């Protein structure tokens, strides 16, 4: 049930992010969700794309330092307290969130969030058992 996230090492250089994004764009790869973890001298771009395998191969071919990470896409009710409800379920079951960020698109009336857990399988079980909808790779491709 987990999906693939690509993490790309970006050194702090003008135009570097643009280069990576346009490479993906030229190859018809669409970014569905993205965030950047930044530090003083470099950043790590995290993206979920419609065609992760192709994207990973493309980055590798262009010698861009990248890594594949398993993350979980979760539907969160798009209303006040929606995210808090999901997080409470996780907290109650001692599931740690390493980081999270939002999708560009919505899934039906719900917002879509990407979660990175240290224990992915355990997290998926907790979420499923609590009736929280997890979105699979096929769904992402079709967004």
């Amino acid at each position, binding site marked *: 049930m987990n999906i693939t996230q690509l993490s790309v090492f970006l*050194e702090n250089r003008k135009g570097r992010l643009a280069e990576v994004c346009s490479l993906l764009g030229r190859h018809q790869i669409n970014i569905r969700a993205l965030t950047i973890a930044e530090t003083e001298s470099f950043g*790590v771009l995290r993206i979920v794309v419609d065609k992760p395998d192709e994207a990973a191969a493309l980055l590798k071919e262009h010698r861009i330092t990248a890594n594949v990470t398993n993350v979980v896409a979760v539907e969160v009710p798009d209303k006040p307290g929606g995210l808090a409800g999901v997080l409470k379920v996780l907290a109650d079951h001692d599931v740690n969130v390493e980081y999270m960020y939002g999708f560009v698109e919505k899934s039906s009336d719900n917002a879509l969030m990407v979660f990175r857990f240290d224990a992915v399988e355990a997290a998926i079980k907790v979420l499923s058992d609590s009736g929280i909808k997890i979105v699979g790779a096929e769904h992402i491709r079709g967004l």
Partner: protein
Amino acid sequence: MDVAFWNREIETMDRRRLTELQVTRLRDTLDQALHTPFYRRRLEKAQIQSGQDLRGLEDLRTLPFTTKDDLRQSFPFGLLAVDFSEVVRLHSSSGTTGVPTVIYLTQDDLDRWTDLLARSIVATGCTSKDVFQNMMTYGLFTGGLGLHYGGERVGMTVIPIGGGNTQRQIRVMKDFKTTVVHITPSYLLHIHSRLAEFDTRPEDLSLRRAFLGAEPHSENTRRKLEDLYGIDAYNSYGLSEMNGPGVAFECVYKQDMHIWEDAYVVEIIDPATGEVLDDGQKGELVLTILTRRAMPLLRYRTRDLAFLHAEPCPCGRTHRRLSRILGRTDDMLIINGVNVFPSQIEEVVMAVPEVGTNYQIQVDKVGALDRLTVKVEIYPKMFTGEAALLDRLKARIAEKLRASITINPRVELHEPGVLPAFEGKAKRVVDNRQEM
């Protein structure tokens, strides 16, 4: 101009007698060197069984040079010429390849070294009335302790404050009306840039002189410091292999540094051929120490480029003068007074598995101080996607470098293939420091 002497007889000795004294001391030094496994082999090869086999100074030229590498290979005791129990002090360098170098002194050696420093201090016009704030690093580095003992020998009030902590340096200068400091030129410039922050003007200080050391600097830098503080600044030269500071020091005329020839045989050589050059010709400085029984060193290649003046100095001292250090024959960098070899940095970064195959060393001037930046390319296979891990990696590399070279570098992580690649000999050092 007032000229004072610590040891007028030696300092103004005529050249012929000075040479005789050198020969006598060189013979003793050879006898002493024969006690070490390293020199016994070498001297016997050169048909020297005792110091008496040396006919004159020219004979010294037939002996091979001693290099830093010889010191490393002889670590720890291969060049020790006395029983270890006679050693009262040792100084050591960090060592570029993990093997440090070490220098030993007996009590007599220490006294003779201290005497050279007292001589140097008095040559600048200082007296026992001076208050001497020694801002040079103490410890295994020779810069701090050398001048410290010299200052006490002269009878000055010595404040052994060591380096760093600018606020305290300024306060102590005011509290005790410091009249003379021993300091790197870049740190003295830096202190000036921070005086206002601590409500201090140069004229609030009682400073009259500065001994500048541990860093090559230009005549312009000296003048600038003299103008900024309204002081006289004196250049000095030394290296730990030759005891430390006090090998050569400027007198009140400040026209290059008298090199104390009763304690050192001085040669300038062509670094490529080893041929001895004439006075006035630029080459590598080679020194033989004549006043250290615990650890003689014969024809030591300093790797420093300079030339000698033979013409008499108005002060009356007969010891020749050494020019400013004009460069190095190796790639050693001097960063805020600390000697750093690029190979030390390479050794550290290349031992980190997350680092790829390329790196670059950059040195910049930020204000008056030097800043070292080490840029490394990360190794793609070790990239996990976690920014926090990369931050920790940066901190880990910085800490390892600090442990090796004693200064704190900035570490930059780069993508593979971004740093300049080289075919053939790599040029990994970018030194952006302009002549001050």
